[in-house]
């Protein structure tokens, strides 16, 4: 005898998503701070190394990605709930 498929556990999907979105919004500056300090880990004062253009590319690329994520978050997040925090 085939068992009936198990019912999905009930979750208020919309509010759950909102809470996770807030987590992303709060994590984003931390990610930014980490990304922007990564070039400091690269070898400096290395003779004959051309680090500036690499750092330039890395920083602008991560900067742009952060903006994209920030935009996604800002468009979805709702700031109106009175029960927050």
């Amino acid at each position, binding site marked *: 005898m085939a068992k009936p498929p198990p019912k999905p556990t009930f979750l208020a999907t919309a509010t759950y998503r909102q809470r996770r979105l*807030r987590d992303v*919004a*709060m994590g*984003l*500056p*931390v990610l*930014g*701070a980490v990304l*922007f*300090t990564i*070039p*400091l880990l*690269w070898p*400096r*004062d*290395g003779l004959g*190394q*051309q*680090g*500036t*253009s*690499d*750092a*330039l590319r890395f*920083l*602008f690329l991560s*900067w*742009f990605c*952060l*903006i*994209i994520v*920030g*935009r996604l*978050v*800002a*468009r979805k*997040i709702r*700031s109106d709930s*009175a029960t*927050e*925090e």
Partner: protein
Amino acid sequence: MVSFNLLIAVSLAYVAFLFFIAFVAERRAETGRGAWLRSPLIYTLSLSIYCTAWTFYGAVGYAARSGLEYLTIYLGPTIVMLGWWWILRKLVRIGRSQRITSIADLISSRFGKSTALGVLVTLIMITSVTPYLALQLQSVTLSFAVFAESSGQIWGGAELNAAALWVAAGLALFTILFGTRNLDANERHHGIVTAIAVEAIVKLFALVAVGIFVVWGVGGGIRPTLELIDNSAISQWTQPAGRWVGLTFVSGAALLCLPRMFQVLVVENAEESHLATASWAFPLYLLVMSLFVVPIAVVGLDLMPQGSNPDLFVLTVPLAQGREGLAILSFLGGFSSATSMVIVSTIALATMVSNHIVVPLWLSSRSFGALMSGDVRQVVLLARRLSIGGVLLFGYVYYRLSGGGAALAAIGLISFTGVVQVLPAMIGGIFWRGATRWGAVAGLAVGFAIWGWTLFLPSFGAGAVISAHVLADGPFGIGWLRPQALFGIGGIDPVLHAILWSMLLNAGLFFAVSVMTFPLPIERLQGAQFVNVYEHSVGTQAWTQSKAEAEDLLIMSQRILGPADAQDLFQKAAQSQGKAGYLPDVTPEFVARLERELAGSVGAATAHAMIGQMLEGASVTVQDLIAVADEAAQIMEYSNQLEEKSAEQERTARALREANEKLTALSIQKDAFLSQISHELRTPMTSIRSFSEILGDGSLGKADQAKYAGIIHAEALRLTRLLDDLLDLSVLENGQVNLNQETGQLSDLLDRAVSAVGGGQILILRRRSEEVVTLTTDLDRLTQVFINLIANAEKYCDAPNPELRIEVTRTARAVTVDFIDNGRGIDQESQQVIFEKFSRLSDHRKAGGAGLGLAICREIMARLDGAITYVPGQGGRLSA
């Protein structure tokens, strides 16, 4: 060669254009057609005053000197903007709910509306920002000088100074015209914000245009430009980690603390949702602004002669390439950056100066207080206008004194470091309820002192303010107080050194003193309101039942808010108290609300002081606070009780309504039943009476006698049957029936029913194999139901060859017995009523019953936990 006069004409035309834009925006906002003025786009663009002439000109110079370090100035704000959910959202919410007018107002308001703190923050801001204003004047005059030089004049000090004076005067005029139209800072400066948004576009466009020209026009594309970077003096990645992190931190913090940024971010914010858009759009703006900085620097270093000022590459590179149009565009970009920054900074500073210094001083100089004095509104406006002039004059004087020598970026960083001394008090104030005003004062004072000693004063050069001897050996030979090596730790980069020690000691003292001191009641109230701003956005209620007369308050408010607004406010308050006219009762709630409105015009501390004077010193004591809190608690409890009661009443009313409906229906039913029953009883009674009269005559023959006696007997039987049925039904309906549970076969029951009806008139079709069902129920009652149904079918089936099929089906839960005849069925409207008492669809004589049969059936089935229903197109159905 660009004629210098042409440049002057272009810049004047540009300024006229800005005036026009500001004027149109003000007009539109006044006539209510200014919805677009309050768009997220305008908000984001207005934030671009972060990018001053320092970033427009200075960033290229910075990159030419120190490689990628200039990026920290943009990366810090990017992190803060992306983290808007943490801090900025809260600041904006507080700014709106508390009607904050400036950053000094925020700090003062948070720490118990303290005037002293407002003054302290104002002083810090003026000291830190004035050099920055001077820097803007310097950059504009330098860019003028570049053009003068290219048209053959060499500018000396006198021309530069004159140009700086003209620029400062023009900016003062613009700012006074559009910055002091409204007294209430919360009414926002639409004209200025719009002009700034236009300037933001101009400077972005100019820098991108120069960048594109440099990369594709001079450098020959992206790849060659990157190669040029690799071959330049800044090709090596030698960034000191400490400065990188330190400058990112300072510039991020400065975004929150700079008076002009606070003005556009918080005070001019029209809607919280705009912040969400700006959180990604402003970093994007910064990214584009900084994208071409390194290429311009590298190409400038490559093209320009040794020793030329890299701060002006944005101008000089296009000029040297003969691109005069581009150079003028670039000039306008730099001009926009400088002017927009100066205008907003000046407004922000002037608001602070007038609200926290001038008006409190003026108030305290009047012995009679606000009531007896002249028009406060005019005084505040005048104070603000004078402050604008004063701030710009101060900037000009600083420019003259400093001689415009130091590199642009250095002044910018000094200014940033001074401004962020407010950060611990601000962040502590909005996230930590334990922060006290003494902690704030201690942190601010120490941080400010360290900044002045280690960074600001030495910035004038060795020997200018601090002698070379003190720089090297410390004051009075105390080595550990050396300005650039506090506590004997030398060798740190001076800026980093100042940031480190000032922030550490500032935050440390703020915390330590806050923990050790005890806050005033009003501080605790304000603290709770700031820290828990999301939970309750209502104002403080800190005034007692006051001695002030409403009329006096109205007179004072008119002077600050203007007659129309003040009267409107009072009238609304009176209305909400249920009074007619303009004068409400002076309740604590009303006074608190009035104070908040006034705070929007003159700042929280001043508003508090003015109302304090009106109330003759009847301001807050702990007892008052407790009284107010008690009152609030009582009101809340009372309203809870009321709510509960009204809910209960609602419930009762609903129950009553339902009961009434039921009673009405029952009464109607009873009436119908009585008239029905009397009719039913009357008919046989009439025939019995009349036939018995005939019999009593005695003149009848034997045959007739027997016939009439038969009729009387039949009618009596009918009556008995009717009464039996009624009795039966009433017993069933009252639920007094005793069920006699037995076990039997369904087929036996049906047999009994069919034989009881005895019907020869209808053909009964059964399938005995289906009927093998064992039942445990009241068999007699069930049989009664079957008999009724079969009898009904026999009586009413109108087919020529009537037949009745009895079908039995079993399901898991029930047994269904269908009685299906081949008649034409029952009309739709009658289907509803066939199970009601006395409902008969045709001539009742033919039926020979009272119309109670099916009603009894229904009752019986209900008692036996079954049901009887009519299935259209089939016949009766019952299930048990």
